[in-house]
Protein backbone atom coordinates (compact mmCIF):
# COMPACT_ATOMS: atom_id res chain seq x y z
CA UNK A 1 0.00 0.00 0.00
CA UNK A 2 1.13 3.50 -0.79
CA UNK A 3 -0.03 7.01 -0.04
CA UNK A 4 0.81 9.44 -2.81
CA UNK A 5 0.63 13.07 -1.80
CA UNK A 6 0.64 15.25 -4.90
CA UNK A 7 1.52 18.96 -4.51
CA UNK A 8 -1.12 19.74 -1.90
CA UNK A 9 -1.86 23.18 -0.49
CA UNK A 10 -3.69 23.36 2.80
CA UNK A 11 -4.85 26.37 4.75
CA UNK A 12 -5.35 26.41 8.48
CA UNK A 13 -7.02 29.43 10.02
CA UNK A 14 -6.32 31.36 6.85
CA UNK A 15 -2.65 30.44 6.84
CA UNK A 16 -1.10 28.50 3.98
CA UNK A 17 0.51 25.82 6.06
CA UNK A 18 1.28 23.44 3.23
CA UNK A 19 2.60 24.99 0.07
CA UNK A 20 2.69 22.33 -2.59
CA UNK A 21 3.86 19.27 -0.69
CA UNK A 22 4.59 16.16 -2.71
CA UNK A 23 5.75 12.94 -1.15
CA UNK A 24 5.17 9.23 -0.99
CA UNK A 25 4.51 6.99 1.98
CA UNK A 26 4.62 3.24 1.69
CA UNK A 27 3.74 0.23 3.78
CA UNK A 28 7.13 -1.23 3.10
CA UNK A 29 9.30 1.49 4.48
CA UNK A 30 9.85 3.65 7.49
CA UNK A 31 10.07 7.32 6.70
CA UNK A 32 10.89 10.31 8.84
CA UNK A 33 9.47 13.74 8.19
CA UNK A 34 11.83 16.24 9.74
CA UNK A 35 10.90 19.83 10.32
CA UNK A 36 10.74 22.48 12.98
CA UNK A 37 7.70 23.27 14.98
CA UNK A 38 5.19 24.95 12.72
CA UNK A 39 6.81 23.65 9.56
CA UNK A 40 3.56 21.88 8.62
CA UNK A 41 4.16 18.32 9.81
CA UNK A 42 0.94 17.93 11.77
CA UNK A 43 -1.06 19.68 9.10
CA UNK A 44 0.31 17.26 6.54
CA UNK A 45 -0.74 14.25 8.60
CA UNK A 46 -4.18 15.74 9.23
CA UNK A 47 -4.58 16.43 5.55
CA UNK A 48 -3.63 12.88 4.64
CA UNK A 49 -6.19 11.65 7.16
CA UNK A 50 -8.91 13.85 5.72
CA UNK A 51 -9.42 15.99 8.85
CA UNK A 52 -8.27 18.96 6.80
CA UNK A 53 -9.02 19.28 3.14
CA UNK A 54 -6.35 20.61 0.76
CA UNK A 55 -7.58 23.38 -1.50
CA UNK A 56 -5.19 22.35 -4.23
CA UNK A 57 -3.50 19.06 -5.11
CA UNK A 58 -4.60 15.53 -4.41
CA UNK A 59 -3.94 12.48 -2.32
CA UNK A 60 -4.19 8.99 -3.68
CA UNK A 61 -4.01 5.73 -1.78
CA UNK A 62 -2.69 2.84 -3.80
CA UNK A 63 -3.98 -0.41 -2.43
CA UNK A 64 -3.92 -3.82 -4.00
CA UNK A 65 -3.27 -2.34 -7.42
CA UNK A 66 -6.21 0.05 -6.99
CA UNK A 67 -5.90 3.83 -6.99
CA UNK A 68 -8.21 5.42 -4.46
CA UNK A 69 -8.72 9.16 -4.47
CA UNK A 70 -8.92 10.15 -0.82
CA UNK A 71 -8.67 13.90 -1.20
CA UNK A 72 -12.35 14.48 -0.37
CA UNK A 73 -13.00 11.30 1.56
CA UNK A 74 -14.33 11.25 5.12
CA UNK A 75 -11.60 10.70 7.72
CA UNK A 76 -13.04 7.48 9.09
CA UNK A 77 -13.16 5.99 5.62
CA UNK A 78 -9.54 6.94 5.00
CA UNK A 79 -8.57 5.42 8.33
CA UNK A 80 -10.38 2.24 7.42
CA UNK A 81 -8.28 1.87 4.29
CA UNK A 82 -5.54 0.78 6.65
CA UNK A 83 -3.98 3.95 7.98
CA UNK A 84 -3.32 4.21 11.68
CA UNK A 85 -2.79 7.52 13.44
CA UNK A 86 -0.85 8.42 16.55
CA UNK A 87 -1.65 12.07 17.12
CA UNK A 88 0.62 14.66 18.56
CA UNK A 89 0.15 14.95 22.30
CA UNK A 90 -1.30 11.43 22.27
CA UNK A 91 -4.93 12.57 22.66
CA UNK A 92 -5.89 9.61 24.78
CA UNK A 93 -9.60 9.68 25.66
CA UNK A 94 -9.20 10.62 29.29
CA UNK A 95 -12.34 9.16 30.85
CA UNK A 96 -12.01 5.80 29.11
CA UNK A 97 -9.79 2.98 30.33
CA UNK A 98 -6.89 1.62 28.33
CA UNK A 99 -8.96 -1.22 26.96
CA UNK A 100 -11.87 1.09 26.25
CA UNK A 101 -9.57 3.36 24.31
CA UNK A 102 -8.70 0.36 22.19
CA UNK A 103 -12.33 -0.71 21.99
CA UNK A 104 -13.63 2.60 20.62
CA UNK A 105 -10.94 2.61 17.96
CA UNK A 106 -11.66 -0.99 17.02
CA UNK A 107 -15.42 -0.42 16.90
CA UNK A 108 -16.40 -3.27 19.22
CA UNK A 109 -14.75 -5.05 22.12
CA UNK A 110 -11.34 -6.00 20.79
CA UNK A 111 -11.10 -9.73 20.00
CA UNK A 112 -8.66 -11.57 22.19
CA UNK A 113 -6.27 -12.48 19.37
CA UNK A 114 -5.84 -8.82 18.39
CA UNK A 115 -5.45 -7.94 22.03
CA UNK A 116 -2.84 -10.63 22.49
CA UNK A 117 -0.96 -9.40 19.44
CA UNK A 118 -0.93 -5.90 20.83
CA UNK A 119 0.17 -7.03 24.24
CA UNK A 120 3.04 -8.98 22.73
CA UNK A 121 4.23 -5.87 20.94
CA UNK A 122 3.52 -3.56 23.90
CA UNK A 123 3.58 -5.78 26.98
CA UNK A 124 3.52 -2.84 29.40
CA UNK A 125 -0.08 -2.08 28.52
CA UNK A 126 -1.39 -5.39 29.74
CA UNK A 127 -1.14 -4.51 33.41
CA UNK A 128 -2.71 -1.10 32.80
CA UNK A 129 -5.79 -2.53 31.08
CA UNK A 130 -8.33 -1.08 33.50
CA UNK A 131 -6.65 2.27 34.16
CA UNK A 132 -8.31 5.46 32.98
CA UNK A 133 -6.52 7.35 30.24
CA UNK A 134 -6.17 10.43 32.37
CA UNK A 135 -4.14 8.54 34.98
CA UNK A 136 -1.47 7.28 32.57
CA UNK A 137 2.03 8.73 32.45
CA UNK A 138 3.29 10.34 29.27
CA UNK A 139 5.15 7.23 28.16
CA UNK A 140 2.18 5.00 28.93
CA UNK A 141 -0.09 7.32 27.00
CA UNK A 142 2.26 7.10 24.05
CA UNK A 143 2.20 3.31 24.23
CA UNK A 144 -1.58 3.40 24.33
CA UNK A 145 -1.77 5.84 21.44
CA UNK A 146 0.32 3.46 19.36
CA UNK A 147 -1.72 0.46 20.44
CA UNK A 148 -4.91 2.33 19.67
CA UNK A 149 -3.65 3.02 16.17
CA UNK A 150 -2.77 -0.66 15.74
CA UNK A 151 -6.07 -2.31 16.67
CA UNK A 152 -7.46 -2.03 13.17
CA UNK A 153 -4.27 -3.71 11.90
CA UNK A 154 -3.26 -0.88 9.61
CA UNK A 155 -0.77 -1.16 6.75
CA UNK A 156 0.66 2.26 7.44
CA UNK A 157 1.07 4.07 10.71
CA UNK A 158 1.29 7.86 10.82
CA UNK A 159 3.01 8.99 14.00
CA UNK A 160 3.10 12.64 14.97
CA UNK A 161 6.21 13.36 17.06
CA UNK A 162 5.99 10.11 19.00
CA UNK A 163 9.36 10.66 20.68
CA UNK A 164 8.76 14.21 21.77
CA UNK A 165 8.55 15.19 25.41
CA UNK A 166 9.54 11.76 26.74
CA UNK A 167 12.40 10.76 28.99
CA UNK A 168 15.36 9.10 27.16
CA UNK A 169 14.57 5.74 28.72
CA UNK A 170 11.00 5.90 27.39
CA UNK A 171 12.26 7.04 24.01
CA UNK A 172 14.26 3.85 23.87
CA UNK A 173 11.25 1.70 24.70
CA UNK A 174 9.07 3.42 22.15
CA UNK A 175 11.80 3.12 19.56
CA UNK A 176 12.02 -0.58 20.16
CA UNK A 177 8.26 -0.92 19.97
CA UNK A 178 8.14 0.93 16.70
CA UNK A 179 10.87 -1.21 15.26
CA UNK A 180 8.88 -4.28 16.27
CA UNK A 181 5.88 -2.87 14.53
CA UNK A 182 7.96 -2.26 11.45
CA UNK A 183 9.06 -5.90 11.69
CA UNK A 184 5.39 -6.88 11.64
CA UNK A 185 5.20 -5.40 8.16
CA UNK A 186 3.63 -2.05 8.96
CA UNK A 187 4.92 1.03 7.17
CA UNK A 188 5.85 3.95 9.38
CA UNK A 189 5.71 7.64 8.72
CA UNK A 190 7.16 9.50 11.67
CA UNK A 191 7.44 13.21 12.16
CA UNK A 192 10.38 14.57 14.08
CA UNK A 193 11.20 18.14 15.06
CA UNK A 194 14.90 17.76 14.32
CA UNK A 195 16.77 15.34 16.52
CA UNK A 196 18.57 13.25 13.95
CA UNK A 197 20.15 11.00 16.50
CA UNK A 198 16.96 9.68 17.94
CA UNK A 199 15.13 9.34 14.65
CA UNK A 200 17.97 7.60 12.83
CA UNK A 201 17.38 4.14 14.29
CA UNK A 202 13.77 4.33 13.13
CA UNK A 203 13.89 5.77 9.66
CA UNK A 204 15.09 4.36 6.37
CA UNK A 205 14.39 7.52 4.46
CA UNK A 206 13.75 11.15 5.35
CA UNK A 207 11.91 14.12 4.08
CA UNK A 208 12.76 17.62 5.28
CA UNK A 209 10.00 20.17 5.56
CA UNK A 210 10.20 23.88 6.26
CA UNK A 211 7.47 26.50 6.05
CA UNK A 212 5.16 24.17 4.21
CA UNK A 213 7.62 23.15 1.55
CA UNK A 214 9.54 19.91 1.15
CA UNK A 215 13.17 20.97 1.30
CA UNK A 216 14.85 17.58 1.32
CA UNK A 217 14.18 14.07 0.22
CA UNK A 218 16.72 11.27 0.56
CA UNK A 219 18.45 9.19 3.16
CA UNK A 220 18.52 10.25 6.76
CA UNK A 221 22.19 11.08 7.05
CA UNK A 222 22.15 13.13 3.88
CA UNK A 223 19.83 15.74 5.32
CA UNK A 224 22.59 17.18 7.49
CA UNK A 225 24.92 17.32 4.56
CA UNK A 226 22.45 19.24 2.44
CA UNK A 227 23.23 22.94 3.02
CA UNK A 228 19.74 24.24 2.14
CA UNK A 229 17.93 21.72 4.27
CA UNK A 230 20.34 22.25 7.08
CA UNK A 231 19.97 26.01 7.11
CA UNK A 232 16.22 25.98 6.71
CA UNK A 233 15.50 23.30 9.25
CA UNK A 234 18.13 23.97 11.88
CA UNK A 235 19.81 27.24 11.04
CA UNK A 236 22.99 25.65 12.33
Amino acid at each position, binding site marked *: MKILVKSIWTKLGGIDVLRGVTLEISSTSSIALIGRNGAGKTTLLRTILGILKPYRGSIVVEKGGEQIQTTRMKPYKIARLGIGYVPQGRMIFPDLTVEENLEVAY*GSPVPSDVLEWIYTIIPDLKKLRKRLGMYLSGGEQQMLAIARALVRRPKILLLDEPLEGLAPRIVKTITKTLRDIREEGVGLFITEPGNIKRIKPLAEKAYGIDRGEIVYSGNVDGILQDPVARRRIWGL
Partner: protein
Amino acid sequence: MSIDYALVQAINTLFYASILFLIASGLSLIYGIMRILNLAHGSFYMLGAYISYTAAMLWIGPTPAGFVAGFVLSLAFLAAVGALTERILIRPLYSKPSELQLLLTFALMIALDDVVKMIWGPEYKSFTKLPWGYMSIGHYSVPIYMLVVIASSTIIGLLLWWFFAKTTIGKQMRAAAYNPEIAAALGMNTDLLFVSAFALGSALSGFAGAMASPILTAYPGMGTDAIVLSFAVIVIGGMGSILGSVVGALIAAIARTVMVIVYPLLEVALIYIVMIIVLLVKPTGLFGKEIVERR
Protein backbone atom coordinates in the same frame (compact mmCIF):
# COMPACT_ATOMS: atom_id res chain seq x y z
CA MET B 1 -47.27 17.41 58.05
CA SER B 2 -48.37 13.81 58.18
CA ILE B 3 -46.25 10.98 56.85
CA ASP B 4 -48.93 10.13 54.29
CA TYR B 5 -48.88 13.67 53.02
CA ALA B 6 -45.10 13.73 52.86
CA LEU B 7 -45.14 10.45 50.98
CA VAL B 8 -47.64 11.50 48.32
CA GLN B 9 -45.86 14.79 47.83
CA ALA B 10 -42.62 12.87 47.48
CA ILE B 11 -44.23 10.76 44.76
CA ASN B 12 -45.53 13.89 43.02
CA THR B 13 -42.05 15.32 43.18
CA LEU B 14 -40.45 12.19 41.81
CA PHE B 15 -42.97 12.07 38.99
CA TYR B 16 -42.21 15.65 38.03
CA ALA B 17 -38.48 15.02 38.39
CA SER B 18 -38.75 11.92 36.20
CA ILE B 19 -40.25 13.89 33.34
CA LEU B 20 -37.75 16.71 33.74
CA PHE B 21 -34.90 14.23 33.85
CA LEU B 22 -35.97 12.55 30.63
CA ILE B 23 -36.19 15.84 28.73
CA ALA B 24 -33.09 17.35 30.25
CA SER B 25 -30.86 14.30 29.87
CA GLY B 26 -31.54 14.29 26.13
CA LEU B 27 -30.76 17.99 25.84
CA SER B 28 -27.68 17.53 27.97
CA LEU B 29 -26.25 14.59 26.09
CA ILE B 30 -26.71 16.31 22.74
CA TYR B 31 -24.95 19.37 24.09
CA GLY B 32 -22.24 17.31 25.74
CA ILE B 33 -21.39 15.37 22.61
CA MET B 34 -22.07 17.91 19.89
CA ARG B 35 -22.06 21.33 21.58
CA ILE B 36 -25.48 22.08 20.15
CA LEU B 37 -28.11 23.72 22.29
CA ASN B 38 -31.26 22.47 20.64
CA LEU B 39 -34.10 24.90 21.34
CA ALA B 40 -36.46 22.58 19.46
CA HIS B 41 -35.79 19.89 22.05
CA GLY B 42 -38.91 20.96 23.95
CA SER B 43 -40.91 20.71 20.76
CA PHE B 44 -39.78 17.11 20.41
CA TYR B 45 -41.20 16.59 23.89
CA MET B 46 -44.46 18.03 22.60
CA LEU B 47 -44.43 15.77 19.53
CA GLY B 48 -43.92 12.77 21.79
CA ALA B 49 -46.99 13.79 23.77
CA TYR B 50 -49.14 14.05 20.65
CA ILE B 51 -47.97 10.77 19.22
CA SER B 52 -48.72 9.05 22.46
CA TYR B 53 -52.15 10.68 22.44
CA THR B 54 -52.77 9.51 18.89
CA ALA B 55 -51.81 5.97 19.73
CA ALA B 56 -53.56 5.68 23.05
CA MET B 57 -56.69 7.70 22.37
CA LEU B 58 -57.31 7.62 18.64
CA TRP B 59 -55.97 4.29 17.43
CA ILE B 60 -55.88 1.73 20.16
CA GLY B 61 -57.84 3.25 23.01
CA PRO B 62 -56.85 4.10 26.55
CA THR B 63 -55.84 0.56 27.45
CA PRO B 64 -52.45 -0.38 28.84
CA ALA B 65 -51.61 -1.68 25.35
CA GLY B 66 -52.52 1.72 23.89
CA PHE B 67 -50.32 3.57 26.31
CA VAL B 68 -47.37 1.26 25.83
CA ALA B 69 -47.78 1.53 22.07
CA GLY B 70 -47.73 5.31 22.50
CA PHE B 71 -44.47 5.19 24.43
CA VAL B 72 -42.78 2.95 21.90
CA LEU B 73 -44.08 4.86 18.90
CA SER B 74 -43.05 8.25 20.19
CA LEU B 75 -39.62 6.92 21.09
CA ALA B 76 -39.15 5.57 17.57
CA PHE B 77 -40.70 8.52 15.78
CA LEU B 78 -38.70 11.15 17.64
CA ALA B 79 -35.50 9.17 17.09
CA ALA B 80 -36.23 9.46 13.38
CA VAL B 81 -37.13 13.15 13.65
CA GLY B 82 -33.95 13.81 15.61
CA ALA B 83 -31.82 11.95 13.09
CA LEU B 84 -33.34 13.84 10.17
CA THR B 85 -32.98 17.16 11.96
CA GLU B 86 -29.29 16.60 12.57
CA ARG B 87 -28.59 15.19 9.15
CA ILE B 88 -30.52 17.67 7.03
CA LEU B 89 -30.84 20.88 9.02
CA ILE B 90 -28.00 21.13 11.48
CA ARG B 91 -25.07 19.43 9.79
CA PRO B 92 -24.60 22.15 7.16
CA LEU B 93 -24.18 24.61 10.03
CA TYR B 94 -21.35 22.90 11.92
CA SER B 95 -18.78 25.17 10.35
CA LYS B 96 -20.88 28.32 10.96
CA PRO B 97 -21.08 30.51 14.07
CA SER B 98 -23.00 28.81 16.85
CA GLU B 99 -25.62 31.60 16.93
CA LEU B 100 -26.90 30.28 13.63
CA GLN B 101 -27.42 26.81 15.07
CA LEU B 102 -29.31 28.37 17.94
CA LEU B 103 -31.47 30.41 15.57
CA LEU B 104 -32.17 27.43 13.38
CA THR B 105 -33.40 25.37 16.28
CA PHE B 106 -35.49 28.36 17.38
CA ALA B 107 -37.03 28.43 13.89
CA LEU B 108 -37.77 24.74 14.20
CA MET B 109 -39.32 25.31 17.59
CA ILE B 110 -41.83 27.92 16.48
CA ALA B 111 -42.62 26.06 13.28
CA LEU B 112 -43.30 22.79 15.12
CA ASP B 113 -45.90 24.45 17.33
CA ASP B 114 -47.89 25.24 14.23
CA VAL B 115 -47.27 21.84 12.68
CA VAL B 116 -48.90 20.33 15.73
CA LYS B 117 -51.85 22.69 15.36
CA MET B 118 -52.23 21.79 11.71
CA ILE B 119 -52.32 18.09 12.45
CA TRP B 120 -54.05 17.86 15.80
CA GLY B 121 -55.77 21.23 16.20
CA PRO B 122 -55.13 23.89 18.79
CA GLU B 123 -57.00 22.42 21.72
CA TYR B 124 -55.72 20.55 24.75
CA LYS B 125 -55.49 16.87 24.05
CA SER B 126 -56.48 15.18 27.17
CA PHE B 127 -56.33 11.49 27.95
CA THR B 128 -59.62 10.48 29.47
CA LYS B 129 -58.25 7.54 31.35
CA LEU B 130 -55.13 6.38 33.14
CA PRO B 131 -54.24 2.71 32.99
CA TRP B 132 -53.34 0.47 35.94
CA GLY B 133 -55.61 1.94 38.59
CA TYR B 134 -54.88 3.68 41.84
CA MET B 135 -53.23 3.12 45.16
CA SER B 136 -54.29 4.57 48.50
CA ILE B 137 -51.95 6.16 50.97
CA GLY B 138 -53.97 7.21 53.97
CA HIS B 139 -56.76 9.32 52.61
CA TYR B 140 -54.62 10.26 49.64
CA SER B 141 -54.64 8.43 46.37
CA VAL B 142 -51.84 7.88 43.91
CA PRO B 143 -52.30 6.70 40.34
CA ILE B 144 -50.17 3.63 39.71
CA TYR B 145 -49.37 5.32 36.42
CA MET B 146 -47.24 7.86 38.25
CA LEU B 147 -45.23 5.06 39.81
CA VAL B 148 -44.82 3.49 36.38
CA VAL B 149 -43.43 6.76 35.06
CA ILE B 150 -41.02 7.03 37.98
CA ALA B 151 -39.91 3.45 37.47
CA SER B 152 -39.56 3.86 33.72
CA SER B 153 -37.42 6.92 33.99
CA THR B 154 -35.29 5.23 36.61
CA ILE B 155 -34.81 2.33 34.22
CA ILE B 156 -34.06 4.73 31.37
CA GLY B 157 -31.53 6.44 33.57
CA LEU B 158 -29.85 3.13 34.34
CA LEU B 159 -29.98 2.13 30.68
CA LEU B 160 -28.32 5.42 29.75
CA TRP B 161 -25.63 4.79 32.30
CA TRP B 162 -25.17 1.29 30.92
CA PHE B 163 -25.15 2.58 27.36
CA PHE B 164 -22.42 5.11 27.98
CA ALA B 165 -20.41 2.95 30.37
CA LYS B 166 -20.65 -0.45 28.72
CA THR B 167 -21.47 -0.36 25.04
CA THR B 168 -18.89 0.40 22.39
CA ILE B 169 -21.06 2.97 20.65
CA GLY B 170 -21.69 4.73 23.93
CA LYS B 171 -17.98 4.84 24.63
CA GLN B 172 -17.36 6.04 21.10
CA MET B 173 -19.78 8.90 21.73
CA ARG B 174 -17.79 9.85 24.80
CA ALA B 175 -14.62 9.67 22.76
CA ALA B 176 -16.13 11.83 20.03
CA ALA B 177 -17.33 14.28 22.67
CA TYR B 178 -13.73 14.66 23.82
CA ASN B 179 -12.29 15.14 20.36
CA PRO B 180 -14.35 14.39 17.25
CA GLU B 181 -11.44 14.86 14.83
CA ILE B 182 -9.20 12.36 16.52
CA ALA B 183 -12.11 9.97 16.83
CA ALA B 184 -12.74 10.20 13.10
CA ALA B 185 -9.07 9.84 12.26
CA LEU B 186 -9.01 6.64 14.31
CA GLY B 187 -11.72 5.22 12.11
CA MET B 188 -14.86 6.05 14.09
CA ASN B 189 -17.79 7.07 11.95
CA THR B 190 -18.42 10.36 13.70
CA ASP B 191 -21.22 11.28 11.31
CA LEU B 192 -23.07 8.21 12.43
CA LEU B 193 -22.19 8.86 16.08
CA PHE B 194 -23.56 12.40 15.88
CA VAL B 195 -26.73 11.34 14.15
CA SER B 196 -27.19 8.59 16.73
CA ALA B 197 -26.55 10.91 19.66
CA PHE B 198 -29.02 13.44 18.31
CA ALA B 199 -31.56 10.72 17.65
CA LEU B 200 -31.07 9.27 21.12
CA GLY B 201 -31.43 12.66 22.82
CA SER B 202 -34.51 13.50 20.79
CA ALA B 203 -36.03 10.11 21.47
CA LEU B 204 -35.60 10.66 25.20
CA SER B 205 -37.46 13.94 24.91
CA GLY B 206 -40.23 12.34 22.87
CA PHE B 207 -40.48 9.56 25.40
CA ALA B 208 -40.75 12.15 28.16
CA GLY B 209 -43.65 13.75 26.29
CA ALA B 210 -45.35 10.40 25.87
CA MET B 211 -45.01 9.59 29.56
CA ALA B 212 -46.05 13.03 30.75
CA SER B 213 -49.08 13.69 28.58
CA PRO B 214 -51.54 11.18 30.04
CA ILE B 215 -51.36 13.14 33.28
CA LEU B 216 -50.30 16.57 32.10
CA THR B 217 -52.23 16.66 28.76
CA ALA B 218 -50.77 17.67 25.42
CA TYR B 219 -51.03 21.13 23.94
CA PRO B 220 -49.22 23.31 21.43
CA GLY B 221 -46.62 25.40 23.18
CA MET B 222 -45.90 22.85 25.90
CA GLY B 223 -42.38 22.65 24.51
CA THR B 224 -41.63 26.31 25.09
CA ASP B 225 -42.14 25.94 28.81
CA ALA B 226 -40.36 22.59 28.90
CA ILE B 227 -37.21 23.77 27.14
CA VAL B 228 -36.54 26.68 29.45
CA LEU B 229 -37.02 24.46 32.49
CA SER B 230 -34.65 21.94 30.94
CA PHE B 231 -32.06 24.65 30.56
CA ALA B 232 -32.35 25.32 34.24
CA VAL B 233 -32.02 21.61 35.00
CA ILE B 234 -28.91 21.05 32.90
CA VAL B 235 -27.27 24.26 34.00
CA ILE B 236 -27.79 23.28 37.62
CA GLY B 237 -26.67 19.69 37.10
CA GLY B 238 -23.89 20.41 34.63
CA MET B 239 -24.19 20.38 30.87
CA GLY B 240 -23.26 17.07 29.33
CA SER B 241 -23.59 15.04 32.50
CA ILE B 242 -26.31 12.42 32.82
CA LEU B 243 -25.89 12.29 36.58
CA GLY B 244 -26.15 16.07 36.53
CA SER B 245 -29.52 15.80 34.81
CA VAL B 246 -30.74 13.46 37.52
CA VAL B 247 -29.65 15.78 40.29
CA GLY B 248 -30.78 18.92 38.45
CA ALA B 249 -34.23 17.43 37.84
CA LEU B 250 -34.54 16.42 41.47
CA ILE B 251 -33.53 19.87 42.66
CA ALA B 252 -36.00 21.53 40.31
CA ALA B 253 -38.81 19.21 41.34
CA ILE B 254 -38.12 19.46 45.05
CA ALA B 255 -37.86 23.24 44.85
CA ARG B 256 -41.20 23.33 43.12
CA THR B 257 -43.01 21.07 45.56
CA VAL B 258 -41.60 22.85 48.57
CA MET B 259 -42.73 26.16 47.16
CA VAL B 260 -46.19 24.81 46.36
CA ILE B 261 -46.55 23.72 49.96
CA VAL B 262 -44.82 26.59 51.69
CA TYR B 263 -44.89 29.69 49.57
CA PRO B 264 -46.65 29.27 46.20
CA LEU B 265 -45.82 32.84 45.21
CA LEU B 266 -42.21 31.87 44.60
CA GLU B 267 -42.94 28.64 42.74
CA VAL B 268 -42.19 30.01 39.27
CA ALA B 269 -39.19 32.08 40.36
CA LEU B 270 -37.26 29.72 42.60
CA ILE B 271 -35.77 27.51 39.92
CA TYR B 272 -34.23 30.52 38.19
CA ILE B 273 -32.80 31.78 41.43
CA VAL B 274 -31.18 28.37 41.95
CA MET B 275 -29.92 28.49 38.37
CA ILE B 276 -28.35 31.90 38.84
CA ILE B 277 -26.68 30.91 42.08
CA VAL B 278 -25.25 27.73 40.55
CA LEU B 279 -23.97 29.63 37.53
CA LEU B 280 -22.26 32.14 39.75
CA VAL B 281 -20.77 29.69 42.21
CA LYS B 282 -19.99 26.80 39.90
CA PRO B 283 -20.63 27.71 36.29
CA THR B 284 -20.01 24.18 35.08
CA GLY B 285 -22.91 22.97 37.20
CA LEU B 286 -22.83 20.55 40.08
CA PHE B 287 -21.56 17.62 38.00
CA GLY B 288 -20.31 19.28 34.88
CA LYS B 289 -16.84 19.41 33.48
CA GLU B 290 -15.35 22.44 31.84
CA ILE B 291 -17.08 22.77 28.50
CA VAL B 292 -14.80 23.87 25.73
CA GLU B 293 -16.58 25.76 22.98
CA ARG B 294 -15.99 24.06 19.70
CA ARG B 295 -16.50 25.48 16.30
